């Protein structure tokens, strides 16, 4: 018999999958259930699910650009319990955050919407320092209190 490792009480779920289009379904299921576990209403959970899908598909399409690699998602309750924090970690080459920009929404053309959706649906979103040995860490926070600003 061994000592029990103390779990992190804010953890909702940690998921590691291959960064492929086919993994996104599973990612969406996990994000949705994690949001509901955190007490979110369904529309809120659906919005977080969309935002995280968009961030993950950017990892698949841009950060890895077709190269094989894994993607790790950690969903936690915010320390104040007022929302959900999401960390998306990849092992791809380092991305220049200044290149991550959506298109002008009035210039209607295919693509360039993912970043807008993420920013419209989350109160915080951006790159943070990735741990040694990893590639990029994208961090998002969505809070329960006020509806996300509709930018």
């Amino acid at each position, binding site marked *: 018999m061994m000592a029990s490792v103390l779990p992190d009480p804010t953890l909702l779920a940690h998921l590691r999958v291959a960064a492929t289009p086919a993994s996104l*379904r599973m990612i969406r299921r996990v994000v949705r259930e994690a949001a509901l576990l955190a007490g979110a209403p369904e529309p809120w959970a659906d919005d977080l699910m*969309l935002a995280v899908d968009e961030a993950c*598909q950017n990892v*698949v399409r841009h950060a890895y650009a077709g190269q094989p690699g894994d993607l790790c998602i950690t969903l936690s309750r915010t320390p104040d319990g007022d929302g959900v924090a999401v960390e998306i970690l990849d092992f791809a080459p380092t991305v220049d955050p200044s290149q991550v920009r959506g298109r002008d929404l009035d210039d*209607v053309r295919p693509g360039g919407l993912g970043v*807008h959706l993420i920013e419209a649906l989350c109160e915080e979103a951006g790159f943070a320092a990735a741990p040694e040995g990893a590639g990029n860490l994208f961090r998002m926070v969505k809070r329960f209190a006020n509806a996300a600003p509709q930018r």
Partner: protein
Amino acid sequence: MTVDISTRGNAAVAHLSGEVDLERSPGVRRALLDALGRRMPLVVDLSQVSYIDSSGIASLVEAYQTARKQSTPFILCAVSAAALRVMQLARLDKVFDIRPTLDDALAAV
């Protein structure tokens, strides 16, 4: 099947269903552009779309632009709540021609 295309009068009707995500949107894009290749008015029924992401929306935008270039009517109808939400966030609900029902769309082509 990804997209079910049928003919109603002089229009083609594409029924999208389920989750239109990065995995499935290339098939949706191909099916919509193929349908427009027949130069018939195209109605896209989105009533059964439970989820759509930016890649699915991009397929609709590409079909919309292709239709405009060739002056073919392109109408979305019966847009599910999930799909409307994304279009509103992307400010495309004012760009696409959106009708409440399939019959409304067919009457408009």
